[in-house]
């Protein structure tokens, strides 16, 4: 179990993702996807970096079929960023310079919130 990245499921999706007051980054993954597993440490370190500012969670697409279908996930890894219950950003695959790229996804949302 990872320290900074919680598992979400179809069951607690609404509470954990849609009703969160912070931006939520969801990492859609599966055990049979090598790159997904290899991306995990990077996602973990970004989660640690943004502790308290943003929430980073992961959803296993093998064990949960509703959410992937609802959000049109047809390739993994896919990272989807939610704010106030809405999808605001998405990246399919492992981004180059992954740590920076994923951090930027969150930074953009945090910057917006500061302006609001």
């Amino acid at each position: 179990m990872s320290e900074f990245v919680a598992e979400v499921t179809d069951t607690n999706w609404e509470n954990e993702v849609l009703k969160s007051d912070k931006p939520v980054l969801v990492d859609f993954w599966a055990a049979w996807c090598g790159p997904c597993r290899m991306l995990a440490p990077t996602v973990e370190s970004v989660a640690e970096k943004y502790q308290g500012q943003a929430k980073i969670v992961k959803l296993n697409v093998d064990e949960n079929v509703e959410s992937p279908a609802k959000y049109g996930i047809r390739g993994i890894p896919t990272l989807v960023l939610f704010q106030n219950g809405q999808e605001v950003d998405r990246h399919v695959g492992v981004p180059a310079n992954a740590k920076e790229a994923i951090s930027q996804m969150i930074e953009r949302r945090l910057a917006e919130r500061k302006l609001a």
Partner: protein
Amino acid sequence: MSTDYDVIIIGGGPTGLASAVYTGRSLLKTLVLERQVPGGQIALSAAIDNYPGFADGISGYEFAEAFLKHARRFGAEIRIGVGATSIERNDDGVFTVGLSNNTAVTTKAVILAMGRHPRKLEVPGYEKLFGNGVSVCATCDGAFFRNVPVAVVGGGNSAVEEGHFLTRYASEIYSIHRRDSFTAQKILIEEYLQEPKVLPVWNSVVEEIYGDKEVDGIRVRHLMTDRVVEYPVKAVFVFIGWIPNSELVKELVDLDDQGRVIVNELMETKVPGLFAAGDLCVRPIYQLANVVADGVQAAVSVERYLENNKH
């Protein structure tokens, strides 16, 4: 003269990680930069059956994990998710490597092991539907396409191997290739063509991938008759070759017309202290066992170079 590291290895695939085992064992202070996932392209592979020593085969993920563990064992610092964005060499032979987190590090030697990335299919729909049915990773995405027809484009080892992997999920596999036979290893071709789900489409190229939010099908042109046929596939897996990741060094080293770094037997480039190995380079063959060997040679060359250039 003091630098942050003795050697920086750019790329954490099998090549770079093999180098790191050796530079670590030579007690050189080693940094490995991996901007995406350790293991590189091999991490995408479902099963490796031809790396000598693994008679029962091993998954790409496990293989990558094993290499990572080994590199760490001898002290290499491995930064994952961090890439090199620039390299400069000063007259004293010190390299400054700019990183994607906007910092920079110095070193006395560099091993370029950036590898290559999959070539895109330059047809309408590829970019638009990437991740929505268009994929270059069967192990990542195959499971989303159970009991539906899919297409595999390509004719080499990757296409045939990954196409075979997809038979556990898809209902049919239209295997589109521009030639009239595959160029993969014979045993792979045999296993692939024996599968009833596999329907080869020879001498043909994909003209378009269509669909609104997801792939609905492809248009395929037969090269000899010019006839265009539609296949109602829900996914297109593309394995049509590789592009070397040599952007970073195109001004520094010599590249061939395909963008591959030119090296000699010792993995030296034309720049002293700058070595290159693996898929990034011009090599007679691109197999795991070979690029691992390249990584080892590059590391040994670094050690020799540093010995000969002690300040």
